[in-house]
């Protein structure tokens, strides 16, 4: 359908539109008009992605004088593919109605692992080794030697891409990663480098958060994007954590040992070069004297590392004299590693700010803040000079330099925490030194400053006023939309007491109470007998899950559950979990029925959908608060309180609810779907959750017996044929005529539906 939204003609590839999608577009459009940032919340299953894509592309078409570029950030490759598939549909619709004028170029960008077509390179097992294998075939000096020595292996795809040079362009269209690979194979061009090259001209780019937020990567990939871009962070409810992770480093004993090995190797290389090609080292020295800004002298294709969020003025400074010479720099690093090793020997937990840490480092190892600041760039330059290609071997020393640069650059918002052992296993010494970032706004600040509009959107962003404070920005629009439903397809409930009327909770003093464990078990046993197909259970932590399952096994509850459904458990091992998930799905498919035990902050809770029959019921045992004794969390809470005036309790509750909402949100992925949710905890925090869970849900914390009657009724009601248009009573689909009929005032009615 095509409709007019104020002064924008919107092309929407479906015949009908949900009222909430319409209002979402309206708000988004106003934010774009105002050239400001916005924060939009709309529940999953309402077609957020297509509303967003369709509005932004239509906006571009309506205002050809100021073309906006869309940068769409997703969390996973899978989501990236889904987004591109929707864009493809939209694109073909627009082309059909507008012809050549609608032509755009949209690409997905991912790591080499996902884009490479060279079978030899792909044979490597992880991302870093694929990267290294690629560099071994494409680095400038390797290609230079290959010109003389035919035995050196090169990548044919890259060679022909280089040969095509500027002629290597993509025709307009929407390219998923799959399409890019196919295109690359057909033309014989390397899809990865092609995509990297095309990023500058593409109208729509879909890639991962890291490419914008992680300063190490952002510097290379995203530096040439123009200001007139719209940046979208989809599923952004965890964006603060992503920002923090991007700037946090942890150093273990293995890291230091690896770093020492790396340094030895670098030393050897330096010696070798000194003997054979002293001129190179000399040239590098001269370059460094002129300053880091001249890094541009190095060929573009080799800029594979960059500095973490250095302020601009540093880039123009010259590298300090004491690390200009290669061997001196290696000495400095050796001292740094030595110092860190000394710190790790400690027997107590230590916490320090960056300033104090740098001062003591200066005192004991004689490395000052300025030197630290340049470590990362200096290492990068050195490795290029030494022509090191197997970068995956040098990850350890890179981590150390990353750490050094961050410590040297920031004086606020970080803390250094040294823990001699894991809290949960105090007998096993496992010292770890963590540089943890507390301020999410540090990593995202460049993005807000740089781009005209940043859209942060997700299914759960409530309370919506907390995000601007956490990320330190001022949105022009911040709204949350409710889902309009044709039927009450979710049935959420809070269970505060078990079958024997004792309160249930995972509160620390209650969680090991046998009564609570038994009540949880009873609840599950009863549920497996009335709910068909799949059930997903979320526990608050791995250790709690292990404990409770062991207990159920002893008391025979597990056996009772198994009479009705098979049981699958998430573990920390990714392969094992994937296998369990796969079998869980099969059990649901073939009608045997299954239960999946999972953990609230685990992989499954974040990225795996349990839609349709894969999740007819989700049970949340307890409230997934973070581990409040963790030193890092405490430090962050303190920082949040001092800097942003966010109370500890508020943040913890917010975080727990966000996790819980995320977990239960896995079940409903579209309006035709239905599912039930049970929160089993006596704490009233959970009832707040119901304000987040879209729609006007009827929720009451009933007594135990009524529960089951309601569920049975609910399941029967939902099994009746689904009336998509909502002809009987509630209308949730608007056709083109409906939209034309209603003016702006009419819109208000719908929004207050």
């Amino acid at each position, binding site marked *: 359908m095509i409709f007019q939204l104020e002064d924008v003609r919107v092309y929407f590839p479906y015949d009908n539109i949900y009222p909430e999608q319409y209002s979402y577009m309206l708000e988004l459009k106003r934010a774009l008009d105002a050239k400001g940032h916005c924060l939009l919340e709309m529940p999953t299953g309402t077609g957020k992605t297509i509303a967003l894509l369709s509005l932004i592309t239509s906006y571009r078409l309506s205002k050809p004088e100021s073309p906006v570029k869309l940068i769409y950030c997703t969390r996973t490759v899978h989501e990236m593919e889904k987004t591109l598939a929707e864009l493809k549909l939209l694109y073909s619709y627009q082309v059909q109605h507008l012809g050549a004028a609608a032509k755009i170029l949209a690409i997905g960008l991912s790591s080499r692992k996902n884009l490479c077509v060279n079978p030899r390179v792909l044979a490597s097992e992880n991302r870093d080794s694929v990267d290294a294998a690629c560099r071994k075939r494409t680095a400038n000096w390797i290609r230079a030697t290959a010109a003389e020595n035919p035995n050196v292996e090169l990548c044919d795809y890259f060679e022909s891409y280089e040969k095509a040079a500027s002629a290597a362009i993509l025709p307009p269209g929407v390219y998923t990663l799959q399409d890019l690979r196919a295109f690359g194979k057909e033309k014989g061009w390397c899809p990865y480098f092609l995509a990297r090259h095309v990023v500058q001209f593409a109208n729509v780019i879909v890639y991962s958060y890291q490419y914008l937020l992680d300063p190490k990567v952002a510097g290379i990939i995203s530096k040439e994007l123009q200001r007139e871009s719209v940046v979208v962070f989809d599923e952004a409810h965890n964006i603060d954590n992503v920002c923090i992770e991007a700037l946090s480093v942890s150093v273990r004993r293995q890291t230091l040992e690896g770093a020492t090995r790396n340094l030895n190797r670098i030393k050897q290389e330096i010696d070798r070069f000194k003997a054979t090609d002293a001129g190179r080292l000399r040239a590098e020295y001269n370059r460094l004297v002129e300053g880091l800004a001249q890094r541009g002298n190095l060929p573009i294709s080799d800029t594979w590392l960059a500095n973490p969020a250095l302020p601009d003025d540093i880039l123009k400074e010259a590298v300090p004299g004491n690390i200009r010479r290669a061997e001196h720099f290696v000495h400095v690093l050796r001292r740094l590693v030595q110092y860190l090793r000394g710190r790790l020997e400690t027997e107590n937990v230590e916490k320090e700010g960056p300033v104090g840490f740098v001062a003591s480092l200066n005192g004991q190892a004689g490395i000052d803040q300025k030197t630290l600041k340049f470590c990362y760039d200096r290492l990068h330059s050195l490795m290029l000079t030494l022509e090191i290609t197997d970068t995956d071997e040098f990850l350890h020393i890179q981590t150390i330099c990353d750490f050094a640069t961050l410590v040297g650059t920031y004086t606020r918002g970080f803390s250094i925490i040294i823990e001699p052992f894991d809290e949960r296993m105090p007998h096993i010494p496992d010292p770890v030194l963590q540089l943890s970032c507390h301020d999410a706004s540090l990593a995202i600040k460049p993005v807000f400053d740089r781009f005209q509009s940043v859209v942060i959107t997700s299914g759960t962003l409530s309370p919506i006023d907390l995000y601007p404070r956490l990320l330190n920005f001022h949105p022009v629009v911040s709204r949350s939309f409710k889902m309009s439903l044709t039927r009450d397809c979710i049935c959420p409930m809070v269970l505060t007491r078990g079958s024997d009327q004792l309160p249930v909770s995972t509160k620390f003093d209650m969680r090991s109470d046998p009564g609570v464990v038994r009540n949880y078990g009873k609840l599950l046993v009863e549920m497996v*007998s*009335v*709910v*068909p*197909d799949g059930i997903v259970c979320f526990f608050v932590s791995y250790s709690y899950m292990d404990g409770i399952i062991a207990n159920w096994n002893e008391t025979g509850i597990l056996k009772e559950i198994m009479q*009705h*459904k098979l049981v699958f458990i998430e573990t920390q091992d990714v392969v094992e979990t994937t296998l369990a998930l796969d079998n869980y799905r099969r059990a*649901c*498919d*073939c*009608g*045997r*029925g299954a239960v999946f035990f999972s953990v609230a902050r685990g992989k499954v809770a974040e990225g795996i959908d349990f839609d*349709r*029959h894969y999740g*007819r019921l989700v049970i949340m045992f307890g409230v997934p608060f973070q581990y409040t004794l963790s030193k890092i969390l405490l430090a962050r809470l303190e920082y949040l309180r001092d800097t942003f005036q966010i109370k500890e309790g508020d943040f913890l509750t917010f975080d727990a609810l966000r996790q819980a909402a995320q977990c239960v949100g896995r079940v409903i992925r579209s309006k035709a779907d239905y599912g039930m949710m049970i929160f089993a905890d006596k704490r009233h925090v959970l009832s707040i959750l119901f304000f987040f869970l879209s729609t*006007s849900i*009827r929720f009451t914390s009933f007594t135990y017996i*009524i529960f089951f*009657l*309601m569920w*049975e*009724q609910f*399941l*029967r*009601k*939902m*099994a*009746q044929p689904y009336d998509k248009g909502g002809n009987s009573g509630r209308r949730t689909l608007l056709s083109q005529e409906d939209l034309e009929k209603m003016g702006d005032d009419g819109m208000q009615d719908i929004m207050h539906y």
Partner: protein
Amino acid sequence: EDDDDLDGFNAWERTYADERSWESLQEDESGLLRPIDNKAIYHAQYRRRLRTTARIQKGLIRYLYIVIDLSRAAAEMDIRPSRMFVVARHVEAFIREFFDQNPLSQIALVTIKDGVANMLTDLGGSPESHIKALMGKLECSGESSLQNALELVHGYLNQIPSYGHREVLILYSALSTCDPGDIMETIQKCKKSKIRCSVIGLSAEMFICKHLCQETGGLYSVAMDEAHLKELILEHAPPPPAIAEYAIANLIKMGFPQRAAEASISICSCHKEAKVGAGYTCPRCKARVCELPTDCCICGLTLVSSPHLARSYHHLFPIAPFDEVSVSLTNMHNKFPKNCFGCQQSLLATGNKPGPCVSCRTCRQYFCLDCDIYIHESLHNCPGCDSIR
């Protein structure tokens, strides 16, 4: 919103209330309580059903296997006295209705118990023998296995001649199925042999049942309560549309036996005992059978009587639905008949206002709503049109 809330509460309260007398009351415009006019609602439901009856080819000779799940879940008491008894009661009604509507078809009964499917009765056309066998076997235990049942039924139905329509109706109480192998393969096998599988669930929607019905072209429904269950089961009584690939004209050999002389004594071939009078003689082998329709036990000829054929006929040529007469229109013409042409009852509602009625498109006679249902569902002839002839 408020109404909605009220409804939701009633939903669970309903299970407690055996008699909901207050629900059948309604307040009229002057504030008096009146019984709800259920007739209009029923009629609306019936008309909805009727609308779908276009003139299409239908499978008249049906071979239907009714699979009844007698696993542990069938003992649940959510429908009183228990799912098992309620199902049996409605299956009984269904069998009678089925033979009434499809005299040329046959039924067999299968039960699932302890994960194994058992043949309760073989294909046959006698309602009494099926009902008797079913009522004698009502006990439940163990797991349920959809695959075992399908395999068993598939084994039998595969041998049915191609003019017959192969159907399975599964009444499924359990919420899971414990299968020995890959059920997906079995479903594909059923699909290949053109077996139309329908499932009526008793508690909740199950993916595998939905999948089975989608693949084989059957209906999947879940019963809300007992009344709904009855409705859903009876929905399967009228013949389904013929499967396209099977809709080729086919000549079937049939015998029309004569009724045996009153006093003659002969040995009945179906019960293997001597009987006096009241039987039929197969025109080909002269064997004697007790009931029609059936297959001759000796020569295998299909034996029917002509009324059976005639009764099946109406499915192919249903009477066109009657038009609903709107009140304002009749007022305008002012020649609104006082009585129903069918039953001669008054068509006027209370207060001498014209009540709801329908009229036939061809003969333009007026009928009351009861007669409308009777004509379309039982009589299959329009009295108005017939009297013109």
